């Protein structure tokens, strides 16, 4: 565990970047430091690997003051990823990745073997190994940055706005990849961002800092969304935190109806309203949803798929959250969401009303079950 113990940082010009901050950063989890620009996130992160020395207070790593070991050996035991990746432009991708193993005295062969393994892990094609950084996209550069930080298998990973400079689509990919890698490796990650959505998505614990380096709240994301400590945190969380919070409720408690699901070749007796649904969900031969149709307007044996209503984005019960289910229902003109299995086959439908009921039930239970945000 990393314990930040009433640490203050006063820069030489008198700026107090961090003010008596205390924080226990749990092992093998992602702890996100989030807050407006200039609130002291970077300063806090850089005190952990001694790129910045605290003016007061101390930082303990597994009980020992980080000042007890030589600064470079401390840094080599902590992966470090920064905003623009900070790759060495004169070195190829593979030679960038092996930086720390080489500092630690690994042979070139062993280091390169490890690098190849890491490239695969972070989703980089092996054909990129001999490229130079300028030949990579921003997202690929960031992946190399992550691979380089992981190269010597450090227990701790420090990441300072690593995904802020890439476009939203690439950023989402990198975030998903980080969660997947974390599932496999279980590092102690300290992640800095100014983006509250990123914090809520990635964090096991989220520390919200306010300007002047004060800790406003330290809580799991679901709790943050449910019970912001003060108006500052509430304001920082943004307007639709109620909806976003649904990301933390699983959708498997929803009662699915299977009656309104009919195959494309259904005969006339099947093409009547069923369950509470005024529409029927037509599926193809494999059971995948095609769209909604009004029972009266469907002709047995000759369903015109072109005239079906959109079924919105289907959700997977168990995997997706109530937020995704609600989104599917809101997006469909029928107001019903479609549940599918891993193969994309329709396994049931559920109305907005039923989802609303599930939300009320979930809210009445004390706290949401924490699952991966989705």
């Amino acid at each position: 565990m990393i314990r930040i113990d009433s640490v203050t940082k006063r820069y030489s010009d008198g700026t107090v970047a961090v003010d008596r901050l205390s924080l226990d950063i749990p092992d093998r989890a992602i702890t996100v430091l989030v807050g407006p620009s200039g609130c002291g996130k970077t300063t806090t992160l850089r005190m952990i690997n001694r790129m910045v020395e605290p003016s007061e207070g101390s930082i303990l790593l597994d009980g020992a003051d980080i000042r007890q070991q030589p600064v470079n050996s401390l840094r080599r035991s902590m992966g470090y990823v920064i905003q623009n990746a900070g790759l060495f432009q004169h070195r190829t991708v593979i030679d960038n990745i092996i930086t720390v193993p080489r500092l630690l005295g690994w042979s070139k062969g062993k280091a390169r073997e490890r690098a190849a393994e890491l490239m695969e892990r972070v989703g980089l094609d092996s054909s990129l190994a001999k490229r130079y950084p300028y030949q990579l996209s921003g997202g690929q550069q960031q992946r190399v940055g992550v691979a380089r930080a992981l190269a010597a298998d450090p227990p701790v990973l420090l990441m300072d706005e690593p995904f802020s400079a890439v476009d939203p689509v690439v950023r989402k990919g990198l975030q998903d990849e980080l969660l997947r890698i974390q599932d496999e490796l279980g590092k102690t990650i300290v992640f800095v961002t100014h983006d509250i959505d990123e914090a809520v998505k990635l964090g096991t614990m989220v520390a919200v800092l306010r300007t002047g380096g004060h800790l406003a709240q330290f809580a799991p994301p679901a709790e943050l969304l449910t019970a912001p400590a003060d108006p500052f945190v509430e304001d920082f969380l943004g307007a639709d935190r109620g909806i976003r919070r649904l990301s933390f409720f699983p959708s498997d408690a929803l009662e699915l109806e299977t009656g309104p699901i009919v195959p494309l070749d259904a005969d006339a007796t099947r093409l009547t309203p069923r369950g509470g649904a005024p529409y029927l969900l037509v599926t193809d031969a494999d059971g995948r949803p095609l769209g909604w149709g009004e029972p009266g307007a469907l002709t047995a044996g000759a369903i015109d798929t072109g005239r079906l209503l959109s079924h919105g984005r289907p959700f997977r019960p168990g995997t997706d959250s109530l937020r995704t289910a609600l989104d599917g229902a809101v997006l469909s003109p029928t107001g019903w969401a479609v549940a599918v299995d891993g193969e994309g086959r329709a396994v049931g439908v559920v109305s907005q009303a039923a989802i609303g009921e599930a939300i009320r039930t979930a809210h009445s239970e004390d706290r949401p079950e924490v699952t991966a945000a989705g």
Partner: protein
Amino acid sequence: MNVLDFAHSFFADSARWHGYDGIPTRLLEHVGYSLEALAIAALIALPVGLIAGHLRRGGNALSMVATAGRALPSFGLLVLLFIWFGFGTLPVMVPLVVLAVPPILVTTYEAIQTVDPSPVDAARGMGMTEPRILFQVELPVALPVILGGLRTAAVQIVSTATIAAYVSFGGLGRYIIDGLYQKDYEKVVGGATLVAGLALVTLLVFWALSKLTVSPGVRRSG
């Protein structure tokens, strides 16, 4: 007779290619002084420029030294030192070194100091020692600009080394000065052509050097 004819008859004369005043001897002397002056200047300017650039400190002091160095007239310095010290390599070397230090010093400092700070920050954060950061992160990226400074210095040395002849030293300047004195314009033009040719060769050498030593990942921008 025009310049080309002078040059032609100078190089066509087989007697020019032998003896203590022959082209190979004078050329070697010239290259020798130039290399020596460049090496001394680099030994002084490179470490100072590299360290100051790495520490991102001392830029003002360096540019003052450089400006002062540029303001000193090489020829005046040569005469002065000759009066003080008489014959010897010192009066020849000092002006050449003084001439070469400023471009090396200033470009080295600027090149290192302007290296993108984020790889440097990443390197430090990964636990690289400061000398490693300088030589393995900053220098490879700054190398094209540093070589550019060395090239400028080398070309200036090659052309200015002709003045060594004023204090009875050899080198290609001999042809020019003796030629002027003897009103032997064939010799003057021949000497000047050789100096110009040597300057071109110097450019070529640096071009090849940068091809060999600069990583293909480093793209020249400034």
